[in-house]
């Protein structure tokens, strides 16, 4: 089989995943998009492995590892999302702002009392 088909498929998968990561607000969907990206990588690796006729089968072995990694990531990720959802009632990434950098603490303007403490 020609290498192009799986690689193009993987590229499409990856781009879909990347789009999802960038465009989705729901944390679960972002998570799923990431998994899509990982799947694309796995496909890539297997395809290259077969194409290269790697005697060590590195690509396939690595893909197995990736599957395990992906599973672990999903496990932890879902746990975190659920926790956030329970605490905040939302899993939309852009609504989580508690930890944002505090912006522009108002400073007394020149001339206002308080800037020059008079002894």
């Amino acid at each position, binding site marked *: 089989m020609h290498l192009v088909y799986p690689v193009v498929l993987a590229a499409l998968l990856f781009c879909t995943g990347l789009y999802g990561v960038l465009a989705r607000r729901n944390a679960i969907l972002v998570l799923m998009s*990431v998994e899509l990206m990982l799947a694309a990588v796995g496909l890539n690796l297997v395809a290259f492995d077969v194409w290269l006729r790697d005697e060590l089968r*590195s690509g396939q072995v*690595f893909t197995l590892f990736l599957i395990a990694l992906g599973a*672990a990531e999903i496990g*932890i990720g879902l746990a975190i999302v659920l926790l956030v959802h329970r605490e*905040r009632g939302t899993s939309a990434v852009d609504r989580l702002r*508690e*930890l944002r950098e505090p912006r522009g603490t108002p400073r007394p303007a020149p001339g206002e009392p308080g800037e020059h403490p008079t002894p």
Partner: protein
Amino acid sequence: MNALQDVDWPALGPPLIAALAAVAVLLADLFLPPARKGLLGGLAVAGLVLAGLSLLPLRGADRATFCLAADPGLCSYRADEFALTVQLIVLGGALLAALLSLPETGPASRHPAAPHPASGKAAAGNGAAGKETPGTGAPKRDASGTGASGGAGEGSLPGGEFWFLLLCSACGATLLPAARDLATLVVALEITTLPAYALVGLRRRGPGPEAALKFFLTSVTATAVGLLGISFVYAGAGSLHLSEIAERLPDADPRLATLAEAGVVLTLAGFAFKTAAVPFHFWVPETYVGAPLPVAGYLSVVGKTAGLAGLVLVTTGAFPGYGGLWGPVLAVLAACTMTAGNAAALRTPAAAPDGVVRLLAWSSIGQAGYLLVPVAAAAYTAPGDALGALLGYALMYAVTNLGAFAVAAHLARRHGARRLADYAGLYARQPGTALALAFFLLCLAGLPPGLAGLFAKVAVLRSAVDAGLGPLAVVTALNVALALAYYLRWTALLFRPAPAGSPAPPRPVPPLAAATALCALAGAAFSVAPQLILGLAPGVLR
């Protein structure tokens, strides 16, 4: 032909002992009666110490294991000087972070009914569904916003899970610098970071989960991108062993040249994230603020060192032929990273809640920038010297940064809001603590009497000058001056007279005091004899 690999078990000692300690803690947590859960911390610390001691017999040796039966030169694990030094940093960092955590991990048995499952947070009480409505969520948010908005002091960490996760992460970080093929490298990296997500969110109330989520999503995306790069590299080189890649990638099929270059860049991007380089640095302050303080310290040192070690392995180990590609990229990254980190740290207001953690977070980004300088320099010179500078700097940074975190953790026991202003007058009340913190900060700033920091910075700059990276050297130098402003500002605060009516600092607790003393001692030793950390010559990575 013997298909079996000879496994050099002693060489595997550090990660292996860490992993075994993790399992031991997990099992002990299950069977210890609630009253004696305190032993878990001791067990974890002992495991880390033991793992650190297992480095001793490996000194000076260059041992490799998990080699291919067909080609004994091709190994997946190599305990050379680079690996051992990074392992030392990682284990030491983890040990210090563990000491910092000791006072915060209480007996997990305070809620006997509430189970703490494997991820440490997945359990839902049976009535959990009711909590999902925003109505009940809102007051909680308010409470955490007006009160001590930091994670500090809001309940203790669940002991068993915390130590297990910490040890797991340390195990991964210990494995990472010794990995010599991309699969091992990636797996080690993930073992390092996966428990870290859980650690960040381990305290379920407060901002922990949010921090964990942000950390997680960004990190996982970066991992995916990096993995895509690795798959391209694999296509070009036909192997995952670093040295094979180094040999074969430049001679790859010309049709694959672009693919290989894209792979190099993407792989770098993935690892750059782990070191919190610009533009992948935005998660750092938020994550540090939301995480328990010891975990933030852990991330800032161990996580960063691990990521950096990965970056070094990939750049100098696998892509030495592409120095012209990644050298400038890393140089620009380093410059941007330090500038962004220092500029933001400079803006941190003294009165803002969590200012301390935010400052430390931004400063750690700035420091990451300095740490990237030698890596970039390694593209242009013999990598040995540059990596020596890198390791020296990393050692210095680990000791002093964790020392600063130790003092911050100490003060956070009384000042939950973790404001910079809380440090005013510390010298008048606890001179020892104040002097130690001042020393750490001056080390980080690179000013005498923090000679360790000074010489580490000199070494970094030297590597840049040596590599002919003049502009980068200038930017670095200017950043050193910039960073000085906020470090010195904090230092000055310590010696300021204590404001009337401010609460007295908390009484020292032994683990924190021990951690502070350890860091101070190590820092002092490195200051008197900088050759201890700067004499490392890891040579060319194979």
